[in-house]
Each structure stands twice: as C-alpha cells, then as structure tokens.
C-alpha cells in the first residue's frame, strides 16, 4: 500500500508545490487506510511518521535490522514535518548538533539519487547577520568550531552580504557569517524519501494507526497497544514529536519526556516580479529574530518572537488544533523586522501565514536515548524547531544506540536521562518553553542561566544564603550559589552583565578564591547526587567492584575516587565512594547524574532483595568547608582532633558538629584545596551552618559559590564529569591510571577495553592549557568548545576553562588528538607528542598561545599546614 501511494507522489512530481502534494497524499492514503492488519510482533516499533521517525527507521534498516514497524497516527510526514520551513542549517552551538546537522545535510543531498524521490534539495548556503559586535563574536565562535569539523564557513563583511542577496539592507550590520553548504529542502519529501528507502529495506509502515500506550513488563517493553490491535516488540521508539510527552505518560510506568509545543509562524509570499533565484541564500537575522529563505520565486520568512504562545499544555486538544490560525497581530514584530531587513519587499503580495507548532525542551537541546525507567523504550523528540537539520544525524545516533547499545558519538548533552521526573510538570514546561523559544535567536553569552522554572529544588539554607547576597544558578532543578555579592557592591543589571569579556563578578570571585586559599569558605553543595548501597552480605561490595574501576575493598571510613565505566572503558559517571561499613557504601556523583547513574546501577545490579540502592540526595545538606582554616573551625565545633594524624585525607567519619550529632564529615574537597565535606541530615543544616559561621568568624570565614569552586578546580586540573569527561573518555586518557585497578587482577566493567588501550596507547589526552598572551581585561574570555591548535593544526577542543587567580592566567582544559596529516585519521597521542607541540587556543577567531601541561602545577597544592596552626588546634582538641 505504501508503494502505491509513493507512485502517486511520483506522478505528481510535475507540480512544484509541496502543499499540493500533501493533499494528494492524504487522499491517497485515506482511501487505503481501512484494509490493514498489523503484524502480531516485531523487533522494533517506531511511533511517528515525521522526519525523526522515518530517519530512525531508515537507519535501523540500513544497519541490517529487518523486523521494524513504523506507525503514524495520521499521514506520513504530516505533522510539524509537513509545515517545516525546510531550512537545513549547520551553524549550531553544540559540536554534537553541528555533527548531526552536517550528517543530515550529506544524507539529504544523496537521498534523491538513492530513492528517486525528489526532495527539493538545493544548496543555497545561509548567511547569519550580526547587528551588534556581541552577535558577531557569537558567530565567530560558531565559525571557528564549524571549520574544525570540516564545515566550510567564513565571517564576511556587510558589503559582501549585499552581494549574496539582492534585497538585503545591510546598513545596520557589523558583519555576518556565510555557511555556503547549507541547504533548503522540502522536509515532507525528505521524510517520504526516508520512509520509502526504509520500506524498501523491509520496514513496514502503517499510517492512520495510533499508539494508545506501550506495554511494559518488569521494566522492559513487551509490546504496543494501538487502535488497530497489539504488536509485541522488544524495542519501542517514541518519535511522536509534540505528542511524545503525552505518549510517554500514557504507559502504566510513565516515561517522562519533558517537552512542550509553542505556536510558530512563518509567512509565504507570491513570487516576485522577477522571481527570486532558487539558490538565493537563506538569511538568518537573529537580532531581528527572523529567518528568510527563497520559496518558489517569493520568500518564506518566519522567526522566534519574544512572546511565544505555548500550546497543547493540557495535551492534545482537537479544538486547539482547529484554532491554529494565522495570527497576524502576533506576527507583526517579525513582519516589521522583515521589512526593515528587506524594505523592497513592501510590494510583495502575501500568500499565507502558516501556523505550525514546534516542540521545545527545557534546555533547548533535543531529547534522545533510552528511558531510565523502561528498558527498550527509546525516545527521539523535542527538536526545538531544528527537526529537519538534526533529523538525519539524530536518527543515525539513535539507531546505533538501539543496535549497539551506545551511539558512536558522545550524546550526553542530548540524553533523555539528563532530565528526570522533576522536569515533567506541565506548568514548568509551559513556563520554561516560553523562555526557550526566544532563546533560539537570543545572544548566548557564557554562563547564562534560565530565569523561568526556578527555585524548584533548594537547600534548607537557601533563604539564609540569598539574604547574604547569593546569586543563583540552576542545575537539574537545584539552585546553587554562583557567588555572593557583598552588601556594598552594586553589580550591573542582569542585561548588561551579559558579556563575552571579563564579567562584572570578577573581583567578587577573586575575593572568594583568595579566602578559600588563605582562610576558610563554606559552599553549599547539596545538589550533588547521593546514593547509598547496602547489602546483608558482600553483595554490595561485589557489585561495586565490578561496576567501578577503582578498588573499593578499602578499610571502613576510607573514600575512593573512582569512575563508573562502560564496556568501552568510557566514564558513565565519576564519583567518590565512602565505605561507611563493611556492607554499606555512600556514593557522591555530579548533580545531573541523578537519573543516569540510578538507571545504570539498576540496569547492572542483580535482582536481589538483600541489595538495597537508595537515593538519599534529599536527605543530606552538603556543606563544603574549604581552605586551610577549615580544620580549625571543625575541631572547635566538634572538640575532636582533626589533625592529619587523626583525620587523614580521604577519610569519612560520623561525628558531632555543634549540637548536631551524626554528621558525616569527609576530609576531601572537589577542588584540591584542604577542607572537609559535611553531609548533614537536613534538619540539622541550619544549625550546623550557623555554628560554622559563628565559630568561623575569627578564622575569616565567608560564603563562597560555584564560580570560585570552578576556578579552583580547573587551575588544579581536576576534570568534571559532564563537562570534561564523558562516555567516550577513559581514565587512561585523562591521566587517571592510578584510579584503575588494572593490576589487581579483578574483573570490572571496561577492563578489557582499558587493557587494550594501555597496550595500544591513547588517541587523545586530557591536557591543561595556560593562556600566555591573553589579556584578561581586554581579550575575549574562553568558555568551552574552543578549538585547540597544535603547531598550527587543529588538535581538539577545550572542554572547560576558568581564570586562575593564583596563576593570574586563564586555564583551559581540553583533549589533544593527533590527526594524521594525510588522512585525518586519529593516531596515538604520547606524552612526548603533547610536550613537543606549540599550542594555540582559538577564541572567536583569535588565537592565543598556550602552554600545555599534563600534570597539575604542584605549587598550587597547599596541603601542608603551618606549624603553629597544628599546635593551636591540638590545644583545642584535648
């Protein structure tokens, strides 16, 4: 049946208007819809016949999987895909997004040849305009990163822009970025081509079939209930676009897929008197919030307005679908912007204002991956209006994920497991997407924080800290202090502090860093994910020994830094584990690991009722006492000796602090400074904090925030999971061989990969760069993702950076690769290779010399305490 309507489409080819084709398509499939019976079982069932669903089907079938069923509730390519503006743009902020878009571009280009279906693919190139210098910086940063992954692009002058497009008013421009290989395409036809190719490879496609819910048994997908019957399956892929959220919740065991739709408008015009060439480049004017592409001799122009209209908050609503009308008044700012950009279009006749809802996610990144709750339940949705650009690449990664168990690239930034149920509130989503949609064209400066959907999870000290001037950032719904504004200091307004240069909090953080180094600071780190694993016998130890790379069979009270590796030796998680007793362990991981780590442990732990895994994140408030005087504060509060003899580093003890008993004190920090972590049952949090602040006064205690922490840990070359480390980096690549029990003869996950890597050598190496000729006051600051050049050739990207107040230099962390000069293939990176290179870091097109270091600078560690301090505190203690 599917082939029949494809043939109808082919016969329609002469008509250039895809809108007409859609009509033809609908009538064709409508007449065929009734005489269908679904197969009783399949390996994979894909729900959604848009660009993402067909792409997943296409790639799965390409990878050799046969038994695949694709279900579409309406007609193929009829949802957002049909109304998509058809612009394929590779200029994205994340490298993984750039790669997906680049792959999609290449895929769509050859699709017509592969399937014989016209996709309307035209390589037009695209031009991103900058009305301000800050915008130009942003474009330059993207430009640098595009170039190093092999996508040609260049920064051009306004004059050059005028040459590229006939109508463009360039008088208010300061520059632009030209990406010549970007394309326009008919997205509905791409989806049909993908579907056609997939069906030739054996994928069975059924339209007018709705998925009611997914059947789950013992946390594993067993089948799909549709309005036309059941299909048994092992894998289910939710590509339902804006309905993915609802579909996820329809299961007995709901899968939380946080996304929300907003109305999106674009304008179609009739052709110009002298029709616009069909290779006229697409113009994106982010400062004017609009995009403009050529469309059948006229133009297609839409945008992302400041005041979006969220829709379908209460779920699918037929009334709202019918009421999706042209809202010209809403479009007025964008129309003004269009006419400002192209004044000559005034006389162009309007054809239509299209209203097509687009789906947005809480962090403006798409959602893919396997559900943490239901095995075999995969998701690819929430494309943030870039479904066409990402569809091909994202489909490929998801297919790899299903077939191999993991994708070939690091997709943590897009992983469904970065969210939990806490982002699933409809109110939260509605409010957040209203901020996300304008953000697509907003200037993205370093360290921006979302303003909506805040104050969801807070520490019990939140109000206290807020009253003392805390400025907050959010991670996984948790409010964390960035820094504390002293009462006399008046920071610039939020808008003005958005800068690519030295930020206004520089001096504030400097004071906090200095206090951490010379006296003592207290940082509320309650957001960290905390698990407890206990067992009646040795099961806990056995499981952990297998799952973690470092030896956990340590004496009770010791703390071990260890990675949780996957089969390929990459970090799934990087954590600290304290052995509380013979049979119980306390595990601290990064904040955003709450869902991922839980799912990973659950997946690999045996079904054993005597083995208990508990998420105790909410039970403890974590205070980090950081600095040489932390020990004095703590011994004064506990009347217990805290000297290194009594309390060596990486040691954990339950003790009393102030009146509160049972505080878990750990002699470790996450920055390399001396200090302690206090894990305080929440009801004691305020008491302990007050006591610490009172007693600490004479030692010069002050509050500090995460920016100080970041500066401290980066200057000491501490890698953080999620920023520096990911599922594709192994301990050997970041100089952590000492944290791996390779020589102990114990079996653990990832061991084989590591052993092999040890033999063969590593292909990338985590390196610290100290910027040499960088002027902190005048030059652009590094952020992350800046290209690293070794001897003038691209060698990798930075992963994080910070200003080191001790070195008075910027420090960047990143991975150095050794790409073969001839083939571009990755080669082994040796210590010698690193040391013999001359390095440069490219910040928005400007290269700065950098000194590479493989080991931290020893002088920064001040573990030794001065002699008189020891004596003093000993006096107190006894």
């Amino acid at each position, binding site marked *: 049946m599917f082939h029949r309507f494809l043939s109808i489409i082919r016969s329609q080819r002469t008509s250039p208007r895809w809108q007409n084709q859609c009509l033809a398509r609908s009538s064709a499939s409508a007449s065929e819809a009734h005489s269908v019976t679904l197969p009783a079982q399949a390996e994979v069932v894909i729900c959604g016949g848009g660009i993402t669903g067909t792409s997943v089907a296409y790639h799965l079938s390409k990878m050799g999987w046969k038994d695949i069923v694709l279900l579409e509730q309406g007609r193929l390519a009829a949802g957002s895909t049909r109304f998509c503006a058809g612009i394929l743009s590779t200029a994205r902020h994340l490298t993984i997004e750039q790669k997906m878009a680049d792959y999609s571009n290449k895929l769509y280009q050859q699709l017509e040849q592969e399937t014989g279906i016209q996709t309307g693919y035209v390589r037009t190139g695209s031009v991103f305009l900058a009305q301000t210098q800050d915008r130009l910086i942003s474009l330059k940063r993207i430009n640098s990163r595009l170039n190093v992954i092999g996508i040609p692009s260049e920064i051009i002058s306004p004059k050059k822009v005028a040459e590229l497009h006939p109508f463009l008013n360039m008088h208010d421009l300061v520059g632009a970025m030209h990406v010549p290989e970007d394309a326009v395409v008919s997205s509905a036809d791409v989806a049909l081509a993908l579907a056609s190719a997939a069906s030739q490879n054996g994928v069975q496609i059924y339209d007018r079939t709705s998925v009611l819910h997914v059947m789950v048994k013992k946390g594993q997908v067993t089948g799909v209930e549709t309005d036309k019957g059941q299909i048994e399956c092992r894998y289910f892929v939710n590509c339902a676009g804006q309905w993915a959220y609802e579909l996820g919740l329809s299961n007995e065991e709901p899968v939380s897929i946080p996304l929300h739709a907003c109305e999106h408008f674009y304008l179609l015009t009739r052709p110009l008197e002298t029709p616009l060439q069909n290779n006229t480049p697409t113009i994106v004017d982010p400062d004017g919030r609009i995009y403009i592409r050529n469309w059948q001799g006229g133009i297609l122009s839409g945008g992302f307005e400041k005041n979006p209209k969220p829709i379908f908050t209460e779920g699918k609503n037929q009334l709202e679908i019918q009421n999706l009308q042209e809202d010209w*008044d809403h479009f*007025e700012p964008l129309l003004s912007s269009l006419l400002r950009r192209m004044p000559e279009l*005034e006389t*162009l006749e*309007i054809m239509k204002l299209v209203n097509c809802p687009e789906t947005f996610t809480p962090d403006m990144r798409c959602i893919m991956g396997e559900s943490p709750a239901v095995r075999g339940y995969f998701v690819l949705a929430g494309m943030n209006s870039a479904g066409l650009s990402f569809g091909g690449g994202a489909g490929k990664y998801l297919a790899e994920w299903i077939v191999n168990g993991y994708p070939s690239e690091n997709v943590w930034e897009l992983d469904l497991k970065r969210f939990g149920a806490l982002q699933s509130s409809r109110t939260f989503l509605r409010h957040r997407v209203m901020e996300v949609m304008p953000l697509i064209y907003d200037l993205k400066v370093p360290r921006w924080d979302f303003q909506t959907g805040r104050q969801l999870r807070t520490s019990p000290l939140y109000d206290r800290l807020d009253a003392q001037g805390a400025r907050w950032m959010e991670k996984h719904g948790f409010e964390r202090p960035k820094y504390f504004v002293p009462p006399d200091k008046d920071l610039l307004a939020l808008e003005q502090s958005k800068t690519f240069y030295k930020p206004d909090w520089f001096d504030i953080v400097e004071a906090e860093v200095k206090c951490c180094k010379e006296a003592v600071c207290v940082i509320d780190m309650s957001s960290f994910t905390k698990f407890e694993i206990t067992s009646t016998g040795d099961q806990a130890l056995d499981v952990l020994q297998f799952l973690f790379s470092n030896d956990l069979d340590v004496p009770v009270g010791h703390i071990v830094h260890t990675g949780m590796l996957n089969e390929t030796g990459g970090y799934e998680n990087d954590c600290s584990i304290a052995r509380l007793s013979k049979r119980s362990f306390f595990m601290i991981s990064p904040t955003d690991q709450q869902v991922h780590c839980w799912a990973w442990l659950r997946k690999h732990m045996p079904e054993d009722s005597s083995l208990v895994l508990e998420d105790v994140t909410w039970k403890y408030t974590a205070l980090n006492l950081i600095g040489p005087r932390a020990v004095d504060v703590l011994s004064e509060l506990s009347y217990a000796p805290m000297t290194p003899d009594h309390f060596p580093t990486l040691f954990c003890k339950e003790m009393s602090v102030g009146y509160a008993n049972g505080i878990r004190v750990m002699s470790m920090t996450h920055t390399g400074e001396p200090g302690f972590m206090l894990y305080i049952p929440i009801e004691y949090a305020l008491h302990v904090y007050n006591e610490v602040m009172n007693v600490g006064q004479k030692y010069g205690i002050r509050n500090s925030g995460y920016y100080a922490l970041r500066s401290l840990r980066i200057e000491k070359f501490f890698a953080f999971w999620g920023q520096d480390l990911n599922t594709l980096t192994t301990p050997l690549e970041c100089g952590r061989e000492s944290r791996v029990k390779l020589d102990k003869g114990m079996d653990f996950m990832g061991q084989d990969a590591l052993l092999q890597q040890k033999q063969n050598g590593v292909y990338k190496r985590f390196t610290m760069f100290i910027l040499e000729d960088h002027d902190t006051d005048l030059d652009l600051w590094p952020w992350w993702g800046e290209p690293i050049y070794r001897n003038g050739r691209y060698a990798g990207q930075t992963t994080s950076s910070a200003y080191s107040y001790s070195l008075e230099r910027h420090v960047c962390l990143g991975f150095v690769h050794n790409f073969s000069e001839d083939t571009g293939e990755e080669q082994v990176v040796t210590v010698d290779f690193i040391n013999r290179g001359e390095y440069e870091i490219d910040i928005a097109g400007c290269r700065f010399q950098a000194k590479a270091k493989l080991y931290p600078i020893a002088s920064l560690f001040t573990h030794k305490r001065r002699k008189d301090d020891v004596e003093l505190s000993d006096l107190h203690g006894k």
Partner: protein
Amino acid sequence: MGRCCCRCCCPRGLWMLSAPCCDDRRMCVCPGPRRIGIPVRSSSLPLFSDAMPAPTQLFFPLVRNCELSRIYGTACYCHHKHLCCSSPYLSQSHLRYTNHPAYATFSRPKESWWQYTQGRRYASTPQKFYLTPPQVNSILKANEYSFKVPEFDGKNVSSILGFDSNQLPANAPIEDRRSAATCLQTRGMLLGVFDGHAGCACSQAVSERLFYYIAVSLLPHETLLEIENAVESGRALLPILQWHKHPNDYFSKEASKLYFNSLRTYWQELIDLNTGESADIDVKEALINAFKRLDNDISLEAQVGDPNSFLNYLVLRVAFSGATACVAHVDGVDLHVANTGDSRAMLGVQEEDGSWSAVTLSNDHNAQNEREVERLKLEHPKNEAKSVVKQDRLLGLLMPFRAFGDVKFKWSIDLQKRVIESGPDQLNDNEYTKFIPPNYHTPPYLTAEPEVTYHRLRPQDKFLVLATDGLWETMHRHDVVKIVGEYLTGMHHQQPIAVGGYKVTLGQMHGLLTERRAKMSSVFEDQNAATHLIRHAVGNNEFGAVDHERLSKMLSLPEELARMYRDDITIIVVQFNSHVVGAYQNQE
C-alpha cells in the same frame, strides 16, 4: 463665560486652580451656570505653568466635555460653591462640612485663603506632575476587582460570565460605593453602584444594606420562616448573600447589629404580612419594597437614635447625607434594573454586523428628565411649581430628584429641628444640617422609590455597564459601549485578520498591523474592563484616544483639586454569557 461667577469672587481676576473649596456639587447652594468655570484670562496657573505651558490645552477638552454634557443633559452646577456664592438666597452663607477634615478648613475668609494658596509649596516652585505609565496604572488599578462566575463541570450555567468593577476617587475620601453579591437562597446576582453626596455615610450604609433588603424581599415565605426560627433558637443562619468585594470595600462592624435588627424587623413584617397565597414573588415589587423600606429604616433609625454615641452620630450622618442607587438583578435572562437618582445602567448590544449600540435601561432622576419634573410639580401644590425645581435642582439645591437619606428634603421642619437639637454637638455645629432648604413647605420633596425597568436578555446583549454619573458626564453612552465592547471582544476573540483571497502586500499588512497595535496597546494594559473605561474617561483626548500626558496630569491632581475636574467614578461591567442566554431562548 462672562457669567462665570468665579471671576467675581476672585478679586485679582485669577482663576484659582488650587482652590481648596471643591466640594459636593449636588448640594451646591449656588447654581453656577457652568460645571467648570472657564478663566477669562488664564494668567497665572502656578500648578501647571511648568508641566503645561498653555493651561488651556488641558481645559480645552474639558470645555468640549462640558458642552457635550450640556447637550446630553447633565445639569449645570458649580464646583466653586464656596467662592461663587452669588446665589440671591444664600449669598452670605458659607457652608462647610464637618464630616471629614478635608472640608473642615474651608470656611476661611478669602484673604487668608489666598495666602493659603500662595503658601503652597508648588505655588512658588512649580513642579512637574508627570506620572510614569506604571504609576498611572497603579493608581487606576488600585480599586479594580474582577469576578468570574465559577464554571461547573466545564459548563457555565449562569447567564453571567463575570464582572469587572473599579472606582476612581475625586473626593477625598471617595463618596461612591459599589456592591456585588450572589443571592444564595434565590437565584440571581445583584450588582449596584451608589453615588453619595454630602459625605459618604449614606452611600456606605446603602451599599452594605440594600442587597440584604432586596434578597429578603425575594425570599419565599418558608425560607423567611426558617431564618427567623434559626435566629430565634440561636441556630446557624442560612447564608443569604455571597459578597464579591474588593478589599477596599469595607463593611462597618459597629453598626452591624443595628442594621441586622432593622432587617429582622423587616422580614418579621414580611412573614406577618404573608397571606398564605404562595404566589410568585414579583422581582419588580420586591426591588421597590426593598428600596423604600431601607430608606424608611434609615430615617427611623435617625429619629430614634442610639444609646451608643458613636452609632447615634453615625445614623444621623447616614440620614443627613444622601445617596443614589442603581442596582441590577440578573437571574437567567431576566434583567431588572432599579434606579434611584442619576446613576445609569447601559446595555451593550452587538449588532449582527459586529457594531455596538447602547440601550439605556434606566432613567435619570434629575432636571433633564421631564417626567420627573412633572412628577415633582404634581406632588406639590401649584404655588410651589416654580420653587420645587429651580435652576435644574430640587428646591434649587439638590441635583438628583430621588435619593436615599437626605432627610432634609424628607422630614418636616419640626422633626428636623427636634432631631438636630437632641442630636450630638457635632451635628449642631454643622451649619449645613441646620440649614433648612428654602421654600420648604410640603415635605417630603424627595423619595427613594426606584424606577424599575425590566429587560429580557437576548444573545446580542453582551454586557451591562452600571456607572455613577462621574462616568456619564465625561463620556457619551455610545462611546462607553463601543470602548467596552471592543475591549471585551479584543480580549477574548480579537477579530483576526485573514488574508484569504485578497491581494495584500507586505507593506499594506504592516501598516494595518501597526495601526491595530497602537489601538490595542491601551487595551493590553488593562485586565479589567472597568479600568479600561476609566482610563478612557479620564485620559481621552479630542480624538477619543487615551493620551498618557493628559491621563498623568489628571491623576496627579492634588486631592483638593481633583474634584474640580471630575466626579468620583464607579463602574461595574457585567458580562453576559451569550451561549447560556441563547440556550434559554431556544428552550422556549
């Protein structure tokens, strides 16, 4: 203009803008020819000289309004009672109110008053009185209130969607009052605006009490018995009204007991009067009875007095001040409007072509209403025909021809004197209360009996505006209905533009949209139809568009000045549910 009495009172030919003599126009003993005196020579206007170089700019629209209001039949009156006492009858009498401190200072001689003005801070150092848009909004929105009828099971069965109300004071304190309540023992909703004069005591009392009287009048015999039994045996009472009040709408706690007793007497009488025939209660009759009964109770309470000196003074103040009332009772498609005085109820009707028209549901009881003049003349002997309505005022004094309270126009001279003499000293010191109206031969001259109009709601009846004359004298009813109508439709289903089929260029569309946005921008500032109406009433320029500068000036007028430019404005906009109304219609 030459007749303007202000000039003759102002020795230096200055038009005293900052005259602290504004007071109640209703009780003006001086029948000035104009609502607002126009300066012959606007030489020095210290207040506005900086903010507005040519003072006439501000006054020009007012002149227009003034003329408009003449055309539409608003009475001419004078705000400058104190200054323009050229009345042949009372040329020397300086009236003052002791009700509140703002008026207590008014009886100073002209000379000292002049010094007083000169001594004002702003007189010597002109200051700008610009308010920012947020400040303007906070003033306009301070009293706004919205009520949405809750929907049950997703279906709103009430013919009322909800109402918006708001008020903007000109007097300090404001003398207007508003009330809204749902009848709990019968169906229907009550909404009313009350315009007080000679103080706010009467309007306050009426706003608290009238709805109870109406609700009781509407109650069937059994319910009345049940309530009476509950009171008798000390059981919990059936709730009668569900009030919908803005936090600023207060009820006096002190008088509550007294008011309750009067109300109880009323229903006891109703129970006794019941003849056993359980005929349907006629809403019209109930409304009339309730109005008359309440006015009667107000009068009786003042005559009887109260041992508590505070209450005693209160009931006297209530009786000696006055209030008009315009009350709507909506039950399904049955809309009754009971009106006493010159507030007005206006129905907004949307024609099939989308245009708006106004249907007036009440008659003003003032000199512009010939039937009222006729009624008054008939009620009194022929020889009083000339004096009963004089200079468009009742006995040359009172503008509304019907009102609550105002016992000075109701009681016999003997009774007035007796009550005043036995009353508290404050009352005795008050020259106004002591003053007996001229030509006072055959009281009562005033009644609180309302005129009740009935209207059966149709689907095209979209809303009802109840407002005190503060609104109607600044805006024509057609403008009122148009502004509210466009506001309400704009808020809920703004007529969308569709290109479909027409040849429209981007430029044309852009022009159209810019225009629409300019029009809508003032709408979007308000979430409340009443606020939106007040914004227009106060801020409209000659072209019928809200002028921020003008709005800002009008709202920044000092208390003692505001009354010269506008009256208290109180507005309730009731929105009807056309679907429900239509369904009623189809049922029959």
